[in-house]
C-alpha cells in the first residue's frame, strides 16, 4: 500500500471510535428534521450541504418555530464560528496544498475530523502525505453522517435511549484530550475552558463554547510565557 493510502486508512481508523457516538445523533437529526416539516430530500441534503451536526439540529428547531430564513442563516454562522479555530489550528499543516485539496479538506472539517487529525499532526509532524489522514477521518465521518441521517429519516430513532450510545462521543473526546495535558499550561487551558463552558452553557447558539475555547487558549498562552520567562 502506498503512503497516501496508508495515511488515508490511518485517518479512517482514528475516526472509528467517534463514529459510534455520532451515529445515533445522525439518526436523531434525520427523525427530527422530518418532524419539523422538512421534506425527506431536504432533510438528507442538509446533511451534505451544511454538514455540521449542531447547526443542523438548531436549524431544524428554528424551522419548526417558523423562524425567518435570515435569522436561521445568521444562527448557523454563529454556531459554526468555532470552525475558524480549527481552520487556524490546522492551517500550518495544510499550507502547501493545492486549492483543490484545501477546498475538499475545508468542506470535511468538523469537530470530529479535527480532533484526531490535530493530535496526529502534533505527534507526527508534517509529512508529505499527512493531508490524506484528514481526508480519511473527514470522509469516514461524512459517510457515517449521510447513512445515519438516511436511517433516521426512514426508520426514525431505532436505537433505544437506554443504550446511551451518545455517551461514546464525550468519551472519545476524553480519550483524545487527556494525552494533550502534558504540562501545566495545557492542564490550566483545559480546566479553565471547561469551567467557562459550564458557566456560559445557557447562552444561545453555542456562543459559550467559543468563549470557553478562547479563555482556555488565553490562559494556556499566558502561563506558557510565564514559565518560559522563569527559565
Amino acid at each position, binding site marked *: 500500500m502506498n503512503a497516501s493510502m496508508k495515511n488515508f486508512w490511518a485517518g479512517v481508523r482514528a475516526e472509528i471510535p467517534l463514529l459510534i457516538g455520532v451515529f445515533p445523533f445522525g439518526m436523531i437529526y434525520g427523525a427530527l428534521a422530518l418532524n419539523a416539516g422538512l421534506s425527506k430530500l431536504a432533510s438528507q441534503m*442538509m446533511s451534505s*450541504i*451544511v454538514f*455540521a451536526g449542531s*447547526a443542523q439540529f438548531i436549524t431544524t428547531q428554528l424551522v419548526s418555530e417558523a423562524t*425567518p*430564513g435570515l435569522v436561521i*442563516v445568521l444562527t*448557523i*454562522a454563529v454556531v*459554526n464560528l*468555532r*470552525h475558524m*479555530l*480549527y*481552520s*487556524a*489550528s*490546522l*492551517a500550518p499543516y495544510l*499550507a502547501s496544498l493545492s486549492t483543490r485539496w*484545501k477546498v475538499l*479538506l*475545508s*468542506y470535511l472539517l468538523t*469537530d470530529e475530523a479535527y*480532533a484526531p487529525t*490535530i493530535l496526529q499532526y*502534533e505527534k507526527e509532524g508534517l509529512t508529505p502525505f499527512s493531508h490524506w489522514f484528514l481526508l480519511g477521518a473527514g470522509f469516514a465521518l461524512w459517510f457515517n453522517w449521510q447513512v445515519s441521517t438516511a436511517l433516521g429519516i426512514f426508520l426514525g430513532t431505532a436505537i433505544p435511549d437506554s443504550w*446511551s450510545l451518545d*455517551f461514546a462521543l464525550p*468519551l*472519545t*473526546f*476524553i*480519550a*483524545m*484530550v*487527556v*494525552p494533550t495535558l502534558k504540562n501545566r*499550561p*495545557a492542564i490550566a*487551558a*483545559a480546566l479553565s*475552558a*471547561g469551567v*467557562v*463552558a*459550564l458557566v456560559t*452553557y445557557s447562552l444561545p447558539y453555542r456562543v*459559550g*463554547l467559543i468563549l*470557553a*475555547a478562547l*479563555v*482556555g*487558549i488565553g*490562559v*494556556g498562552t499566558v502561563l*506558557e510565557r510565564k514559565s518560559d520567562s522563569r527559565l
Partner: protein
Amino acid sequence: MNIWLVMLFGGLITFAMRSSLIYLFGKFHVPETMRNALHYVPPAVLSAIIFPELFLHEEKLYLSLDNHRLLAGLVSILVAWWSKNILLTIIAGMVALFVLQILL
C-alpha cells in the same frame, strides 16, 4: 426564505469559516504568539465540549453521586491517563455507565 436557500447560504457560510484560515495562512505573516496559542486549541475546545456533557443535566449543574455520566467520565479519564488507549477508554466509560445505571 425558502428552506433550500437557507441550507445553501448556511452551507456556504460554514464552508467559508472552515476554509478561512486554511486559505489565508501563508498569505500574511502569522505572529509567533498566535502560532503558540494554537497549540492550546485542542485541550481548550475538547474540554469545553466534554465538561457540559459530564457536569450538566438539563442545563443545571449536577454534582451528585447519582450523576452516572460524571462518575463514568471520571473512570474514563483515569483509564485514559493510565492506558493512553482510545478504545479502552471508551469501553471503560461505557461499561462504567452501564454498571452504574444497573446498580444505582
